[in-house]
């Protein structure tokens, strides 16, 4: 820390301007995040203060209290939504990582018929907006009887063209020599994949984890379309319906503020966690 400060001291005027400029920019960009935190702890009267205050004056936990109380009055408790979200998220993350890395390894390192066709189909599927495939998705999910199951949440996001696309680029940079060395060392396809390809793709896996997390955590589509039972819906759906129900409801604004923070925090944690991993794995990968 001291060394870092000393470095700032010995900066040239140009570097000083840069440091100052970027610090200001970073502070400005973090304003919404600070606002979400501050907003969630504002008492009812401060929420409607005019002109609005940025920082909370008298922080309180009342908002969270009323959110949980409101939720426990409903047929399905808040914790059930949370549990659903966590289950769906873990299942989806794990399966997306497994499916994408395996697909990417094969597409990047093996030669087989129709490889170019498959790759271009994956690229093509990047172009479809999710809304355009809602109906076929519904038909497939209900056709194989996945309505109201956790797999109904997982299946639509299982094949992630973005993840495969990114990983193909990444895996193809792993030197062939490494794979051949592993082959001679006695590793089979699974061994090469698990011992060489997977660990070396860690930075890319971290990135797709962040992306997948954000999509799944905020996704309401699977809950809306495929889940008819309230007990199978996710937190994002709950918060979303709560907020839209409260839009013109003065009394509900405190719950909305608290829910906003709750839905945001995991995003932040995951991002900070994996972002560090991305950097770490890039530094230590040792691949030139």
């Amino acid at each position: 820390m001291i060394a870092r400060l000393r470095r700032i001291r010995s900066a040239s005027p140009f570097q000083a301007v840069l440091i100052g400029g970027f610090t200001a920019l970073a502070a400005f960009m973090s304003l919404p995040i600070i606002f979400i935190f501050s907003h969630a702890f504002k008492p009812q009267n401060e929420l409607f203060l005019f002109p609005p205050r940025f920082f909370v004056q008298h922080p309180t936990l009342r908002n969270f209290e009323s959110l949980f109380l409101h939720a426990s009055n409903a047929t399905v408790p808040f914790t059930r939504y949370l549990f659903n979200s966590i289950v769906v998220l873990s299942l989806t993350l794990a399966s997306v990582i497994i499916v994408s890395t395996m697909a990417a390894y094969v597409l990047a390192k093996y030669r087989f018929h129709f490889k170019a066709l498959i790759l271009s189909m994956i690229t093509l599927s990047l172009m479809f907006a999710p809304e355009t495939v809602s109906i076929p998705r519904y038909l497939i999910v209900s056709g194989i009887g996945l309505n109201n199951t956790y797999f109904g949440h997982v299946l639509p996001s299982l094949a992630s063209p973005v993840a495969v696309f990114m990983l193909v680029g990444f895996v193809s940079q792993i030197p062939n020599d490494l794979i051949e060395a592993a082959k001679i060392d006695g590793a089979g396809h699974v061994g090469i994949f698990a011992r060489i390809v997977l660990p070396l793709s860690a930075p890319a896996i971290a990135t797709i984890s962040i992306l997948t997390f954000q999509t799944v955590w905020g996704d309401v589509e699977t809950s809306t379309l495929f889940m008819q039972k309230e007990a199978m819906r996710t937190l994002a759906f709950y918060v979303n319906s709560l907020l839209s129900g409260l839009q013109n409801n003065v009394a509900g604004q405190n719950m909305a503020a608290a829910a906003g923070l709750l839905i945001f925090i995991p995003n932040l944690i995951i991002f900070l966690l994996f972002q560090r991993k991305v950097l770490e794995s890039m530094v230590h990968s040792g691949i030139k």
Partner: protein
Amino acid sequence: MGSITFNHVFKRYKGEARPAVDDFHLSIEEGEFLVLVGPSGCGKSTTLRMLAGLEEISSGELYMDGKFINYVSPKDRDIAMVFQNYALYPNLSVFENIALGLKLRKTAKHEIGLRVNRVAKILEISHLLERKPSQLSGGQKQRVALGRAIAREPQVFLMDEPLSNLDAKLRAQTRAELIKLQSDLKRTTVYVTHDQVEAMTMGTRIVVMKDGVIQQVAPPRKLYDEPANLFVAGFIGSPQMNFIPGRIQREDGTLYFANRRMKLPLPVEMERRLGGTDRSLRSVVLGVRPEHVRLSAALPEGEDSGYTAAVVQMKEETGADSYVYLLAGDTRVIARTDPESAYQPEEQAAFGFQMDKIHLFDESSGVSLRREQA
């Protein structure tokens, strides 16, 4: 254990007219240090990769210890390979890098520890076992790659230009260590390089390749003294062998090598080998190594002295020797002299050849006449 036989092996890549490896036919004996050498793209690496099982064999058969192994997967061939860029697993420590091959072969854990430590001791990398490859220098990485190969105790070592990423001093040092290691372990080693010095110093037998075709297989000394053709003669030796085009002529019953500038009587022994037939009177290329060129400050008296007048172009010092570059008309000749000699650029000089050391090659086929007659 560890003998290898290539039986007319070919490698053809799709969409390419010429095979990358063309009729590779060779037996490698147990414990031999065989070096494949040639310019880039000559098929030496492809041959090694076919032996490793990383490349399919288009036609022909490959045997190891008399067993047909064309379709045996790399891991079942009992080989270990050292790659040019080391190919260490960056995510594993040095210990794990060396141990992986043993682990995958279900070696007992205590045995793995013993073997890795023994290998680390031989290669003097015991203090590095906990490090990751990214924390090693080039020379250290090279040792780890070697250690990974040795720890497996395979029948055959394959090495694909393992020294070419090292700096000159380290390369010479590692070369010596490799030679010692091989003679200690007594395992069959197939070594690929484009560096003829490496080939000459390391190999018990050398295979010179060009355009996928074997040019000559011989021990280093024989390769140097009796190159089979123009390519081998030019490839082995530095500076290169001098080549002078001309014809073989017969005058008064004696055979001469002659062109517009020189007329050199061929030694009796070579004349006998060429035979008295007129078939030998044809266009040839005379090859003579720089150390077999005689220099003289002035053209000696007498017409048949065998010397040719020339102009010194430049002098190259290597420390132990110096090389004088001469020009006689359009014929360039490099001669080795001792560094004390006083030849200066632009000066007149004369050169002659030690006629018992010259080589003659057919001009059109490039094949050594010595070999052709034999």
